[in-house]
């Protein structure tokens, strides 16, 4: 008899979601659904607000990646004012974004996913957490804390506070960087670069024990999308959008983010508050694509900084064409941390970084603006329309996690079919299905633009509603 298995909530992710698995009469998983169970409403309640408030409203979508929303929103406002920012401010914005990348990736890898990687997918949930990591591999724990701390400190030094800073404004930033602060940051970089390298060395060894997960965690052909700069690097702050396929061929290139509606569609499914973006020329759902660290490293032929480039070459050698397994998002995140640190060092050594012209001013010059950047989790788009008085009339956000929605759904189906046996559930089975989602590092509060508390309960429910088996915590 077919059954429905629910994993609710999914643990060690940002935000609130559940997974439903449907089995057939033989206990084989036939369908899987990833439900985002929260609704935020940012796109609606900002209507009527002055456009220049948007960066401060939008960054409050999230406490982990507020900088991405701040930057995408500020860029949309830059377009409304028809402004380019001063060169120093442009580089400072880029440093801020890279700092956030570091702290967000460190959170995802070391705090959220390392319990699975270090303690094992089948470990007792009582131990499979941050404290378990700290007990078993304290050095790895210290690396994670230091990397996250550095990213947050950098944000605080530049922008005044770690979460929801107000420093980025339409037209630039509201304070230049002093020589003293620049030197303080430069002094810390060698140590954290060394930690990033040690983390990679450690992880490449540990990865060998997860061959089965690598093979089955959302390991399938898909398109990949992300920003690429004019010099063919992953473009975190700017660039044009590129799509590649699983063989590494470029499918579409140099797409202007401002025209995203021409090539990105957004579908809605009744079982989730998160939208389902897709590549329009391939239709829905065949137009599935992935974004974020795995995609960014697949999209380019050059990582762009010397140490990260060496790691990128080794990473790309995992497969003959694109790297497809979503388990390798973890690996890609560590490489991006290294890249970000090296890139920050380059920017800080640039003499213009301490120039005092931090902002240009203008009034409203356009009624529509689009801002696009690469958040830690992938491409982020803010699209605004205003009236003649500069009041918001409409907003559309396409969030990084949303781009991965189709892929996450397909990924949990693949993992569930491999690991879940409906006749007898185990925590390890279900943890592996959750771990697929963790590999994507979803930011669900962003993606639906809730705060909720749900008891952890996994039930096997027969079609007639009888509870056949249950796990609680």
């Amino acid at each position, binding site marked *: 008899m077919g059954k429905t298995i629910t994993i609710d909530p999914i643990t060690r992710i940002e935000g609130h979601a559940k997974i439903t698995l449907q089995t057939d009469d033989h206990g084989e998983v036939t369908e899987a659904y990833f439900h985002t169970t929260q609704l935020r409403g940012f796109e609606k309640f900002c209507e009527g607000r002055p456009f220049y408030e948007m960066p401060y409203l939008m960054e409050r979508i999230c*406490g982990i990646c507020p900088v991405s929303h701040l930057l995408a929103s500020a860029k949309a406002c830059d377009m409304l004012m028809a402004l380019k920012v001063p060169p120093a401010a442009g580089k400072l914005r880029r440093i801020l974004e890279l700092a956030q990348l570091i702290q967000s990736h460190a*959170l995802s890898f070391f*705090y*959220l996913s390392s319990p699975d990687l270090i303690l094992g997918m089948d470990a007792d949930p*009582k131990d499979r*957490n*941050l*404290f378990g990591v*700290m*007990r078993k591999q*304290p050095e790895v*724990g*210290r690396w994670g*804390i*230091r990397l*996250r*701390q550095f990213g*947050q400190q950098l944000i605080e030094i530049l922008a005044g506070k*770690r*979460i929801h800073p107000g420093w980025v404004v339409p037209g630039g930033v509201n304070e230049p960087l002093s020589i003293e602060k620049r030197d303080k940051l430069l002094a810390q970089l060698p140590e954290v670069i060394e930690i990033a390298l040690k983390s990679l060395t450690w992880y490449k060894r540990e990865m060998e024990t997860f061959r089965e997960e690598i093979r089955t965690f959302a390991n399938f052909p898909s398109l990949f999308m992300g920003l690429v700069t004019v010099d063919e690097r992953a473009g975190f702050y700017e660039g044009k959008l590129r799509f590649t396929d699983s063989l590494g061929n470029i499918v579409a290139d140099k797409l202007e983010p401002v025209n995203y509606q021409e090539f990105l569609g957004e579908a809605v499914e009744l079982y989730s508050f998160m939208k389902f973006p897709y590549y329009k020329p391939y239709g829905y759902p065949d137009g599935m694509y992935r974004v974020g660290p795995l995609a960014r490293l697949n999209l380019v032929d050059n990582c762009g900084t010397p140490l990260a480039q060496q790691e990128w070459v080794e990473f790309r050698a995992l497969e003959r064409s694109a790297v497809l397994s979503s388990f390798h998002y973890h690996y890609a995140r560590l490489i991006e941390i290294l890249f970000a640190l090296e890139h920050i060092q380059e920017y800080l050594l640039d003499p213009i970084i301490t120039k005092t012209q931090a902002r240009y001013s203008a009034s409203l010059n356009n009624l529509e603006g689009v801002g696009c950047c690469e958040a830690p989790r992938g491409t982020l788009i803010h699209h605004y329309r205003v009236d003649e008085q500069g009041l918001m009339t409409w907003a559309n956000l396409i969030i990084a996690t949303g781009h991965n929605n189709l892929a996450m759904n397909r990924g949990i189906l693949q993992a569930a079919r491999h690991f879940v046996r409906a006749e007898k559930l185990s925590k390890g089975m279900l943890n592996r299905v959750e771990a697929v989602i963790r590999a994507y590092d979803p930011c669900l509060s962003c993606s639906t633009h809730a705060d909720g508390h749900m008891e952890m309960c996994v039930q096997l429910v027969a079609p007639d509603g009888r509870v056949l088996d249950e796990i609680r915590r």
Partner: protein
Amino acid sequence: MHLARHMEAMQGEPGAEIVCSQQWTPEYAERLSHAEMAIFVDASATILPGEVQVRAVSPDSSRQGVTSHSVSPAQLLALAQQLYGRVPARSFLVTIGGESFAHDRQLSTPVRLAIPAALARIRELLGENQSKKG
């Protein structure tokens, strides 16, 4: 946060570092490991509005529910001990009972009236620490 900002505005306390943060996260473990004494300040929904409580805190990693968003003072001390081999000699949690936890820029009346008492307790603790050192 209000207490911490108030102390910062008063140019702080000699020898004390004031940290304003919406959450206690694992990254504070390293900083704690260098401190002689730690005073955590928080609001509570489980004691009477305006009540000020002070209790000693010890490292404890046995509680479940640690998340990257928020760690309790006891868990933070346990992290400091586990990772850096050291915790402050004395640690305290100063808690003010809250009345309203809705979005607002103003403190509720009972909490506002409790601020001087909470500050006095914090200064007492700091003074005691100075005496012990002296």
